[in-house]
């Protein structure tokens, strides 16, 4: 890491002076709430500018959707250090719940939406008790297994429409979904931002850095892990709950999409996992690229996604936000004459060594 920083330092320094980056990131830290509110206001005013129902509004809606998913993944994957390859299981449960409730039981969409979120949280609690006992490779593969089993079950059951899925024709307007996804995203960002300053957030990070030490300090890590996992389940479930009607169609392949699961991990990682802004920035960035590829090079999305994942992991394992703040922390190095410059980034490398 440090060698690449030094190599690119010359060019990067002339474009982004570290003291400015430092000041910018400091501003973001100090004015987090106003910035979040401002961003929400700007996003909320877009449809008023005449985008309603158009292509760009759909793209923006999808970006909010992916931002929700990436941020949810990051609560457990980035903040707690449990990399899940099965988050999309919650998505599928939420998606099928609203599809079945609204179509077969004529439940109103808002009620179905809330029930779907509740169902996803319950599922997360049950699954979490089992899989959160595992670590590292075992956790990753077990969660992938949960996702595949959920997909298989939805393919067999009758109520889900089997392999052919469900078509949903009576859906709310496109604008409703735009505000719904935006609202969930802003609420989630606010919650994660708030939590990152509380004991809850600190314990999650402590679990990531050294779970045994956190346990030894007297924290019931199982409780914190499960709570974080349920939180991720809630928001992922909400995203799925709205998605099935937004998409007007749901089948096992789209509801429990393993490629999406990788996509949202890549987003969190690309932007910078373990932060609030990182996964959201990553989701907007990567989705823009994917959207372009889907328009101009159909059939190559996964090649691109795989390439993006590999480049991110090898080149910028700390993501945009992480790399920037590391770069800015070089300022400390100059200010304090070379003492304790990059103390923070060694800790994260050791995190999930087990």
């Amino acid at each position, binding site marked *: 890491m440090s060698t690449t920083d030094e190599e690119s330092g010359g060019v990067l320094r002339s474009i982004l002076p570290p003291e400015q980056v430092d000041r910018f990131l400091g501003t973001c830290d100090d004015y987090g709430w106003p910035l979040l509110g401002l961003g929400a206001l700007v996003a909320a005013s877009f449809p008023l500018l005449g985008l309603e129902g158009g292509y760009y509004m759909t793209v923006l809606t999808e970006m909010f959707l992916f931002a929700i998913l990436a941020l949810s993944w990051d609560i457990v994957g980035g903040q707690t250090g449990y990399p899940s390859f099965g988050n999309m299981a919650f998505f599928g449960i939420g998606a099928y719940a609203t599809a079945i409730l609204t179509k077969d039981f004529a439940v109103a969409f808002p009620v179905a939406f809330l029930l779907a979120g509740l169902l996803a949280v319950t599922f997360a609690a049950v699954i979490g008790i089992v899989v959160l006992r595992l670590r590292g*490779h075992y956790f990753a593969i077990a969660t992938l297994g949960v996702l595949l089993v959920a997909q298989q079950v939805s393919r067999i059951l009758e109520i889900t429409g089997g392999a052919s899925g469900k078509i949903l024709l009576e859906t709310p307007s496109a604008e409703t979904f735009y505000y719904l996804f935006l609202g969930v995203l802003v609420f989630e960002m606010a919650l994660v931002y708030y939590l990152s300053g509380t004991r809850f957030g600190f314990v999650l990070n402590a679990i990531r850095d050294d779970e045994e030490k956190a346990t030894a300090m007297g924290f019931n890590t199982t409780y914190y892990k499960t709570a974080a996992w349920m939180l991720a389940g809630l928001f992922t479930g909400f995203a799925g709950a709205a998605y099935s009607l937004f998409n007007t169609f749901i089948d096992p392949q789209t509801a429990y999409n393993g490629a999406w699961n990788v996509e949202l991990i*890549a987003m969190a990682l690309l932007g910078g996992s373990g932060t609030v802004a990182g996964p959201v920035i990553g989701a907007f960035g990567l989705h823009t690229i994917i959207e372009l590829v889907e328009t101009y090079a159909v*059939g190559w999305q996964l090649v691109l*996604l*795989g390439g993006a*994942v*590999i480049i991110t992991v090898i080149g910028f394992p700390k993501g945009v936000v992480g790399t920037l703040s590391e770069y800015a922390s070089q300022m400390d190095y100059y200010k304090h004459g070379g003492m304790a410059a990059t103390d923070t980034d060694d800790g994260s490398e050791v995190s*999930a060594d087990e």
Partner: protein
Amino acid sequence: MAATQFVVNGLLVGALFAGVAVGFALIWGVVDIINLAHGEMVMLGGYTSYWVLTLITGNAEGSPLLFLATIPVAIAVLFGIGYALQRTLVSRVIGTDIFLTLLVTFGASIAIQQLAIQAWSANPRSIQVSFADPSMTLAGIVVPKMKLVAFAGALVLTALMYVFLQKTRTGRAIRAVSQNPEAAALVGIDVEHTRAVTFGVSSAIAGGIGTFIAVILNIQPQMGLIYTLKSFIIVVFGGVGSIPGALIGGLLLGSVEELVAGFASSQWTLAVSFSLLIVLLILKPKGLFGQEAEQ
């Protein structure tokens, strides 16, 4: 009687699972990487054999001997791919967060998958091997001849790998690296090269098994993930780094799947295997034959 038939079917297919899993276990034990692209090596091995056969005969049909002749080709090609994969990608993330290693190999896996779809379309394919009399009956149990050949082939490949690890100089280097990379480097072993060879050997055996899978089951670009996951189940069951454990695990998984498919429905096999895995992980996280990497 039906149960016996299912178990026999299961054992015959299970040897193939075991062969794939042995390669997976080798990487896990030596390089300490979960190679999520391992199943893609199986797929590429199957396609290599398919295309070699098509080049020779004009269609993917041939005599048993001709088919067997394609296996060394698949093994050689996959060895090269595995070696390159380790050198270009995996070596860059070794020693970092295990999560990053998972992501790199997953990235490779989905990229290979879609490239394969672009190259060969998503249609399932299979190799037809012509036998005068395709199956035989032993004590009331039907045994397709090709399955028997595949079973024997998988066992031979596994045995060859075992001998390679035990008897050859490279094999000893591989075991040395798995036990202590620093000490191995001190006595003059090129650790990077040895790891790449390990990756190559692992991919080669997966590719070799892939050729048999192309004959008795099907090959298609998206088949890989299932084989990776089955390997994981088998290795967890048998214990990381244990070749005999992987063999027994593979035979057992095959039997369980055939029994589930026979008595319930083939739709349930995946769900049942994974539920078994999760139960096993909770009860016995080190596996039945769990030990430190094979001595």
